[in-house]
């Protein structure tokens, strides 16, 4: 609708709150992050130090470790969680009996807070009373009795990343919804040709939800780049910084008042996010049109 002259004030009033909030909590923080990353700001005073924060960060083993761990999380999600979600979505796509119940149940971890999930899985991995060790012992792996999964330098990362598979339901729901839009005609035609269920899934459903599959990979990468609670509450980045991730690293810099350094880490994190997003888009776009 074309706006009338006397309604311009109303229009401005309506968009003002959103714009103010957006500036206050998106634009200004990002600019502020960038500017202070070149200073030694400690909350009281700030001096320009050039690229010192960045060079110091990249010379720190624990920071490089945090970056590789974040990439590790992203890669697990993109190569394991999302493809598994695709398989489950294909299996439920036929709307066989009870599919709604499975959808609801698989989605539940997504609506529970990360803090509660982190505490739950820390308990699952507990050396004394955790269910994981008990089940392993039960099926014959008695070496793992009293094994401290999250405290052991060799198993901490694997345990953290293994539990993250419980988020498969979120991506499954997105892809499952996309299958609802596929016309029955395709399947009818395939039935006439005598295609099996597996062939139909592979040659009809999967190609048609390809773009949604790629979208899920992009979402998975964003979520895993900014994740904080699991590592912070389950291992606090330990043992010996083995499980460190970027946001926990920034948090630790904040708690020792090295705010400029922490913000430099923030800039690097946003840059990594942007690079990942742009290259994924490029990669997946060319893939979609081929």
């Amino acid at each position, binding site marked *: *609708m*074309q706006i009338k002259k006397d*309604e311009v004030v109303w*229009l401005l009033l*309506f*968009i003002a*709150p*959103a714009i103010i*909030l*957006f500036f*206050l*909590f*998106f634009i200004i*923080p*990002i600019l*502020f*992050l960038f500017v*202070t990353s070149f200073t030694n700001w400690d909350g009281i005073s700030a001096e320009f130090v050039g690229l010192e924060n960045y060079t110091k960060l990249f010379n720190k083993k624990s920071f490089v470790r945090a970056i590789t761990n974040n990439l590790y999380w992203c890669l697990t999600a993109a190569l394991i969680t999302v493809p*598994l979600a695709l398989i*489950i979505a294909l*299996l439920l796509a036929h709307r066989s009996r009870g599919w709604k119940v499975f959808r*609801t*149940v698989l*989605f*539940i971890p997504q*609506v*529970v*807070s990360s*803090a*509660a999930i982190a*505490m*739950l*899985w820390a*308990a*699952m991995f507990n050396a*004394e009373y955790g269910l994981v060790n*008990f089940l392993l012992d039960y099926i014959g792996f008695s070496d793992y009795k009293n094994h401290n999964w999250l405290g052991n330098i060799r198993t901490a990362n694997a345990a953290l990343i293994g539990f993250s*598979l*419980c988020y*498969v339901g979120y991506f499954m*729901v*997105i892809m499952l*919804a*996309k299958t609802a839009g596929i016309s029955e005609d395709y399947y009818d035609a395939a039935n006439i040709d005598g295609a*099996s*269920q*597996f062939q139909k899934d592979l040659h009809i459903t999967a190609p048609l939800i390809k773009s949604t599959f790629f*979208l899920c990979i992009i*979402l998975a990468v*964003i979520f895993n*780049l*900014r994740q904080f*609670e699991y590592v912070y509450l389950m291992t606090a980045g330990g043992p010996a910084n083995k499980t460190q991730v970027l*946001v926990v690293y*920034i*948090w630790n810099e*904040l708690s020792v008042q090295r*705010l400029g350094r922490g913000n430099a880490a*923030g800039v690097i*994190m946003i840059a990594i996010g942007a690079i990942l997003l742009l290259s994924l888009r490029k990669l997946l776009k060319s893939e979609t049109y081929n």
Partner: protein
Amino acid sequence: MQRDLSSNFYFIFKWVIIISFVFYAVFPFLWLVLASLKTNAELLDDPFKLPAVFQFQNYSNAIREAGLGKLIINSLVISTSATFLNILFSSMCAFAIARHTFWGKNVLFLMITAGILVPLNALIIPYFAIINFLNLYDTRFGLILVYCAVGLPVSTFILTEFFKSIPKEIEEASFLDGCNFAARYFRIMLPLALPGLATAGTFQFILCWNEFIYAMLLTSSTDIRTIQFGISYFTNQFFSDYVGMFAAVVISILPSITVFVLFQERVINGLTAGSVKG
């Protein structure tokens, strides 16, 4: 004959996968609930054995000793206020964008929705500084403001798409009847947009209720602490009272599961409406 074999195999494969993931998603929760009803000594026993007596006092202990009631009230007040403000502001903005043409409209929409892709946790230090600058550190309003802003891109996106789907004729008729801008929004569009508001609101509420890092960053006193930040203290507070911690975790996850089960079609529709276009 061969086809029968392969379709049987497919059938078995399908159910093994689905059931093992349901197991993976749900079993930990069932174990948690069962463990929360045991004594600390029974916990170290066989995890599948039912407790001799169901220890419901674990729950009353957790509520009393840890002040869970207060934490829940704080979370409810903060989450509902932030949801209300978020939905009000984003629906006003979405109404302006979806139903009118004005200079810079597309840029505004693109800019706000691009916020979805910003890894916001990179900004914890600037958020800390801004909230301190506004003198809102350790206040409920500070958290409400941050939650309201953090959810703005998603809500604005969902609501703009929803407003666009409402037929133009209804609004045009009221325009000719002399309704002004605000009346068109409050009297005509808002009632029509109720399903969209419910979808965006459910999302926003779950986001606020589950939020952890900003609650830890921006509050310090126990008086205004939220439940998610509150339960993280349990590991220190109870020391070896694991069952008390489990009871507290169960209490903390009940509200969001309830909201989800009640509004699940909304959540799932919103998720797919918002992301399929994305």
